[in-house]
């Protein structure tokens, strides 16, 4: 099955080890200057009296975030979220419920001398992220669980916990920038295009953004790695996972089947011209734009998944030309472009319909009901998949985004 969009949740940390080679070549004064810039949170208070909660995953990004803020004089409190039973996720008995990441986060906190706590969000993560993920798949969508996690447990629950602690800010290791602007705080893409995580943060509200800080937003991964080594962090050379955290083996279908038993049924693979071409083992195994894995031999043309029809339990395939779309509707719009919603006449912007997508020019107008918007692309694009996020940009600035709806959905 095709992977849902590549997750880049900073709290599960990622980056190929090859990048570590690039970490060499920074002088101590370079790194000190980088840390000083990154560690200026712009809070009008003596740093020693400024309490900052850092969401620590056990990965290198959040470890560096905590270390550099502690170095820059803030009162740093590390918090790690327990999101799911690690032992159950990897199906091995007698493993700790927490797994190695919590252990690593604790070791990092000890090494930099900050208090560290584990908060239990297993129940909320199950209902607000994992079950949503499964339901989305079952209904023929391609979900982005990392957005849901940021939106719920991270920036709703953890943020509330940080406020309960009397913190002045919640900092994470995401590669995204928070820039004070004329009409309030703006979100901008991470300075390094290869590491930008803004796609996964589009649902951050203005109120949340006000409380959040992203010290790594202006850094490259090489700079982060170099800082990790400078702070002697136990996680400095930790390998990173490209998987969704609760699907460590990449087998999404198994997770969906476990959460929603019996929801997957075999059905027909149908050509856009109506011809039944073969059978599939459940629509959860397919994603819009997917070519490999469509087992209908003997066709002269290359076929792609064009549409998933959960009602009829059908996978609709067609030639590459059938993939193109230039209009769709998004729901649950989060608007960060100033004002309560996009202007009635629409706004010219660029959009990303998955994380690894070159932004495409579009006109975005308010939709016919609350929280909806219509996206009109200048040119058709391939792989518009319901359930994926559509994130709106003005250059580097994130204007917000929403979830791509199925054609004709109410």
């Amino acid at each position, binding site marked *: 099955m095709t992977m849902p969009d590549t997750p880049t949740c900073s709290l599960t940390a990622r980056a190929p080890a090859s990048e570590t080679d690039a970490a060499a070549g920074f002088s101590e004064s370079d790194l000190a200057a980088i840390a000083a810039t990154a560690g200026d949170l712009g809070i009008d208070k003596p740093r020693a009296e400024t*309490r900052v909660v850092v969401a620590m995953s056990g990965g290198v990004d959040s470890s560096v975030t905590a270390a550099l803020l502690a170095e820059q004089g803030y009162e740093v409190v590390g918090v790690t979220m327990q999101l799911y039973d690690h032992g159950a996720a990897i199906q091995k008995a007698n493993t700790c419920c*927490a797994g190695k990441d919590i252990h690593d986060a604790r070791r990092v*906190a000890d090494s930099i001398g900050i208090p*560290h706590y584990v908060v*239990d969000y297993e129940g909320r993560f199950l209902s607000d992220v994992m079950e949503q993920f499964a339901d989305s798949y079952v209904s023929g969508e391609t979900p982005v669980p990392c957005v849901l996690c940021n939106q719920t447990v991270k920036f709703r629950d953890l943020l509330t916990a940080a406020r309960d*602690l*009397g913190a002045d800010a919640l900092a994470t290791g995401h590669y995204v920038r928070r820039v004070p602007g004329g009409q309030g705080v703006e979100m901008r893409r991470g300075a390094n295009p290869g590491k930008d995580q803004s796609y996964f943060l589009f649902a951050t509200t203005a109120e949340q953004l006000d409380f959040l800080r992203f010290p790594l937003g202006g850094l490259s991964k090489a700079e982060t790695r170099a800082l990790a080594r400078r702070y002697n962090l136990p996680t400095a050379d930790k390998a990173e996972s490209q998987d969704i955290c609760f699907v460590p083996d990449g087998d999404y279908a198994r997770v969906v089947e476990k959460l929603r038993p019996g929801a997957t049924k075999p059905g027909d693979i149908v050509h856009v011209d109506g011809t039944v071409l073969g059978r599939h083992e459940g629509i959860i195994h397919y994603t819009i734009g997917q070519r490999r894995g469509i087992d209908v031999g003997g066709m002269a043309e290359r076929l792609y998944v064009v549409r998933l029809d959960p009602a009829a339990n059908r996978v609709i395939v067609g030639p590459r030309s059938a993939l193109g779309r230039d209009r769709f509707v998004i729901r649950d719009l989060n608007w960060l472009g100033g004002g309560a919603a996009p202007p009635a006449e629409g706004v010219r912007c660029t959009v990303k319909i998955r994380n690894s997508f070159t932004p495409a020019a579009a006109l975005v107008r308010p939709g016919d009901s609350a929280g909806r918007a219509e996206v009109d692309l200048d040119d058709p694009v391939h792989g518009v998949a319901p359930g994926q996020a559509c994130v709106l940009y003005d250059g580097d600035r994130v204007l917000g985004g929403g979830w791509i709806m199925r054609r004709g959905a109410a």
Partner: protein
Amino acid sequence: MSGSRSDRPAVYLDYNATAPLRPEALEAMTRALEAGGNPSSVHGPGRRARATVEDAREAVAALVNARPEQVIFTSGGTEADALALTGTGRARAIVSAVEHDAVLKAHPETRLCPVDSHGILDLEALAALLAEEPEPARVIVSVMLANNETGAVQPVKKAAKIAHDAGAIIHCDAVQGPGRMAVDIHALRVDLLTLSAHKLGGPPGVGALIVADPLALAPVQRGGGQERGKRAGTENVPGIAGFGAVAKVLASRGREEAEAARALQERLEAGIADIAPSAVIHGAGAAARLPNTTCVGLPGVTNQSQLMALDLGGVAVSAGAACSSGKVAASHVLRAMGLSEETAREAVRISLGWASTVADVDAFLEAWRPLARRARPVATVDGGVAQRT
């Protein structure tokens, strides 16, 4: 870098987890460590170590009105519970729903006896459960003396009568008892009783099972013939010496310390009511409650947040049972009392002890005050919301 901020608490109010070591225990342990010797050895150092162990055994026996030969030293409360529940060879166990995990998980065939909304064992339910047993003589009942989370004192003597009338035997986990209330194995009429040194200001890693009458008890840990064949393994002489020293201190000061704790508890709970009118003391309706234990729920503020904020404010308390990962689970004790998962996750436990002071209690109240401001207001009968002052 910021250095030692990671272990800040200066105010320790978590005696039910473990109590600070008393100087008397430290001194006795230091002496025993320096003296060395294996109590099983024939030579002089061995005999002196033996004397240290037997001296401690007498003190521990006296603490609960038992005879020295009834005391089996163990590695702690958990081992003593395991020895009681499995070493007695009973086919089935009936234990209260609010027992510590050391009891809940000790016997493979365990049924739970419910408690009421104050956390007190339901004696009628106990009698009914025993009546359902095909062979009550093959049953062991276990009821704790007082609950570690709420402090609710259990009707152990009445439970013992019910168990014995049915032909069963009964064990009592009394680790939270000494220094907080009187503990007398004869008055309680239980067959077995568990003690732990570190809950009393002794060292961790040492406890005892007190066996009231000659009872067939099979060792769980086999090897040498130590503890009259009931618990193999070279005795933890320094730990036992520390335990004995604490038992002696409690024999003379136990009542006085309990009274002092009661006065602090009253101050604490009055302060809580003043700061947060919506706060609830769980188990407050119990007929008797330990003088050192207060379990308080703050509506709208999770105990995770409370624990973290208090710790950052230099105050150590606890909540529920912490997993090895450090996450806080909802208390099975509060759930057994009928509280919702959400309410159970709003409760923290403050437990006082021998070194607690008025200043400690006041420091807790000060650190808790900002959290109390975030609490949900008291709901009134008509569904409205009362004004907080």
